[in-house]
């Protein structure tokens, strides 16, 4: 009778964890419960078929180990020729001795909903099982916290795996500046922002750091070249290179109860008529401009004049485009 694959995998994990130095494929086949050990009295043809069946089964099990996050070390023993042996280092594989409180585990559980339907969905669920192993049992409380994204890329999982092995990735990409091209990138970090996912990394052809939006990747992402082929530099935690741009101050008028986000980071400077006045620091014109525009008349730029003019020209252009569209619809 065929052995339950879960039983075979579990026995393989125990065997490789207990192996003193390593186990070769032949040793695994002969001794781990669940694999069919070589038999005597078979024709060479039958022997070859059984051998091939074992190889397929073992490759599948290696994939399962990788999927579980168990590092499989390959050990070459010079006294036994070139044959590869395998071992699992218990200390390397084990979950660190960190316990999560029930409240912490409940917060982490929101990952299941966030990745539902995405390639990382099963990974999120399996990760939550691991968190549960390190969490005290407690009555389930309704989750008062959630996160969703309306689109997630299938490329994320491949990029994350390649990054863990420090292996470059290759993909077809369309950008504003360079058009359509094949890019080879050393992935440093995946960035989640709103409904968008990005990868930051070294573009090998340009020799520079670049950010790629995963939705603009066409087709599949392939891991290419050898593992451990690059190092990841220390990444800034801010929004990128902001050192060179000086900080300026804008004076903004806000209607009462409007512009909560602006108020949060601004300094109050009294009020004039129906306007609350605030001074807000900024680096880029478009940052404040877009925020003021989105407040649709509940905010106004008092100074500098260049910023006010920028808001005015954007609003005038939008008004013109909207009017033209409405007239066009009327005619149609």
């Amino acid at each position: 009778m065929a052995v339950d694959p879960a039983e075979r995998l579990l026995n393989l994990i125990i065997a490789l964890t207990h192996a003193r130095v390593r186990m070769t494929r032949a040793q695994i086949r002969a001794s781990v419960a669940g694999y069919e050990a070589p038999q005597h009295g078979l024709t060479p043809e039958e022997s070859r078929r059984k051998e091939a069946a074992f190889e397929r089964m073992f490759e599948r099990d290696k994939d399962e180990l990788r999927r579980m996050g168990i590092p499989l070390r390959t050990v070459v023993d010079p006294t036994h020729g070139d044959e590869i042996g395998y071992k699992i280092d218990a200390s390397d594989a084990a979950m660190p001795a960190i316990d999560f409180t029930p409240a912490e585990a409940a917060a982490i559980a929101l990952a299941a909903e966030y990745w539902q339907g995405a390639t990382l969905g099963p990974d999120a669920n399996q990760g939550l099982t691991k968190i549960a192993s390190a969490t005290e049992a407690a009555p389930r409380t309704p989750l008062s916290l959630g996160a969703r994204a309306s689109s997630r890329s299938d490329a994320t999982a491949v990029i994350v795996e390649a990054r863990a092995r420090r292996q470059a990735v290759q993909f077809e990409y369309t950008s504003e500046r360079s058009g359509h091209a094949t890019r080879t990138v050393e992935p440093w970090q995946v960035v989640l922002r709103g409904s968008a996912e990005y990868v930051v990394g070294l573009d090998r052809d340009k020799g520079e750091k670049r950010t790629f939006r995963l939705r603009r990747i066409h087709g599949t992402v392939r891991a290419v070249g050898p593992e451990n082929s690059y190092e990841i530099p220390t990444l800034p935690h801010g929004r990128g290179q902001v050192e060179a741009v000086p900080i300026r101050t804008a004076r903004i008028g806000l209607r009462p109860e409007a512009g909560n986000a602006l108020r949060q980071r601004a300094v109050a400077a009294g009020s004039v008529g129906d306007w609350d006045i605030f001074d807000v620091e900024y680096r880029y014109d478009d940052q404040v401009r877009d925020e003021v525009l989105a407040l649709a008349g509940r905010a106004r730029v008092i100074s500098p004049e260049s910023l006010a003019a920028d808001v005015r020209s954007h609003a005038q252009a939008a008004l013109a485009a909207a009017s033209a569209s409405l007239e066009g619809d009327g005619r149609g």
Partner: protein
Amino acid sequence: MAERTAPRVTRMLGIVTHLERHGEATVADLAAHFGVSEQQIRKDVELLWVSGVPGGGPQDLIDFDAWAFDDDVVRLVNSQGVGQVRLSPREAVALIGALGVVVAGGVAPEAAHSALAKLKEAVGDGDAVRSVPVHPADPALAQTLRDAMERSVVVDLVYIDANDARTERTIEPHRLVVVDGATYIECFCRRANDYRTLRLDRIYGATLGTQPIVMAPSEASGFSLVPQFEATIVAARSARWLLDTFPGVEVADTGEEVTATFGVSDVSVIAGQLLAIGPQLRRIQPAPLAAEVSRQAAAALAALA
């Protein structure tokens, strides 16, 4: 379809580690804790029981207390040194990324912050993923809503809706949720006598009420974010950076211009964002969206006059 192997073995190792760290447990408790049936827990334990070091005797097998198991209590006797394994790179990104989204959204309770720190420590490579705030919520407002949910009481608030109409409402808050970077509260609104999903940056002056929450959370989460209509925007190519950020958008290149098609669930928010690409806008459809862009642009100009 039968359960896949990796998730099942991961749970079996989890049962061993859980028993090692937290002591014996009933089958029912383990079932609830790992989110599977009691029958599945029994199968898992029985399979663990017959697993062990190759070629060994009974002393080389994972072992449980048989008397206790007869009473539906799982008590580990010998783990054979196996236990739960560290998070895989993909699992780590899935958990850290999602939790990072709510922390970046500014609505996360202390437990989410400490959980994120512990996850990063457990992984040792917490930089694989970073969640960047888009519209962080007011922390004081988030705290008020969390307090209300914890004490199970209502919240009185002022809400300025998509049409700039100001209303005073009493809500029964159920869940804070970050959708595409913006923060919402899923609640029962007593004024509307129905379930609502309210955007936090439109809520003002929220105060904790005294009346208890009586309505159960809605089964259908995010229902009010269903797109109301499909919009099509034609703009100069340089506006693509913004159009690309709209949820569920399809952007097609048409020479020097791009055409973006997407579902609109919140007209006023989309219109407000479109002002940022005013000089690049060529055509806005349908009329309700164009009218809202027109209204907001006129209001912005009037404020400057």
